[in-house]
């Protein structure tokens, strides 16, 4: 029954913004898809390393390469040697977001749960708490002072700079982190919907039959583009998390 609900396509465009609850506790299709992605992430990261072999299987090689990419190109490149302490956050977050975003182009599902504000919003709040916590742990309460008062600036300019720094670090950062992921996935989902529905409508309306390959071709191209965007947004979210943690660790620039 649950599987049927996951595959079910909403009959109305408004349902994209308003999913009725299917199960108690307000569990709707988006939450079910989120559980699906969570299970996929767990299996993806657990199965190959349950019994690691000396001569790895193909799956283990692929997962190792992907994990190594997050460890090296995101963690060590941005944060430095201390990145080992934050891999518990970066690696599962990257793969979770990747699976959530990829659901956008998965056949029969075609909906990215990240295009609902709740998931990016929660993750951004979590990252916000983490980078402030790291800053306080590393520098004590001087963290706030050092963050909003940049060094080596003339005294008169501080009047202008302190409010800007305060707003940009403590308000715009989490907001833009959440909105970036949310709006990218929402825009992609709407674009795919528009082109697929247009080609379907052209196919049904016989006078315009000749024109139907045009929106369909766009839809196919944009599907490829959305795979790229989904991977890129997962990467950028993880990268920015690493950058924010790094700015909390190393205050002087």
């Amino acid at each position, binding site marked *: 029954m649950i599987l049927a609900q996951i595959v079910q396509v909403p009959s109305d465009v408004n349902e994209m913004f308003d999913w009725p609850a299917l199960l108690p506790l307000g569990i709707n299709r988006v939450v079910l898809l989120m559980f699906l992605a969570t299970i996929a992430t767990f299996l993806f990261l657990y199965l190959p390393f349950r019994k690691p072999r000396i001569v790895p299987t193909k799956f283990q090689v692929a997962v190792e390469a992907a994990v190594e990419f997050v460890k090296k190109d995101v963690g060590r490149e941005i944060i430095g040697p201390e990145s080992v302490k934050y891999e518990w956050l970066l690696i599962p977050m990257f793969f979770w977001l990747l699976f959530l975003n990829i659901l956008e182009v998965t056949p029969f599902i075609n909906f990215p749960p990240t295009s609902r504000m709740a998931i990016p919003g929660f993750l951004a709040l979590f990252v916000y708490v983490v980078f402030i916590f790291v800053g306080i742990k590393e520098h004590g309460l001087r963290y706030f002072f050092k963050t909003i008062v940049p060094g080596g600036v003339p005294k008169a300019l501080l009047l202008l700079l302190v409010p800007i720094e305060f707003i940009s670090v403590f308000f715009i950062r989490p907001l833009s982190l959440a909105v970036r992921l949310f709006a990218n996935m*929402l825009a992609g989902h709407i674009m795919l919907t528009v082109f697929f529905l247009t080609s379907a409508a052209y196919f049904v309306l016989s006078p315009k039959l000749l024109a139907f390959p045009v929106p369909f071709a766009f839809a196919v191209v944009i599907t490829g583009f959305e795979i790229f965007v989904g991977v890129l947004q997962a990467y950028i979210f993880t990268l920015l998390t690493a950058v924010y943690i790094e700015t909390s660790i190393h205050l002087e620039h």
Partner: protein
Amino acid sequence: MDTHAAALLGAGLAYGLAAIGPGIGIGIVAGNAVQAMVRQPEMAGQVRATMFLGIAFTEALALFGLLLFFILFGQA
């Protein structure tokens, strides 16, 4: 003009205007990244990561405009 029409007009204008600046900005970021990669191909990986970072920061403004579009569209 009633508020309904004003909200719709504002929604369209908000996203249209918000897309101009980031469009120019992303062009500059990507163009300079290509220049850097051509001049120092051995740094290409690092330049690409920095380019995506720059694009992500620039793009946020356009996405705020898109969000404003939905907010205003909901008002209409």
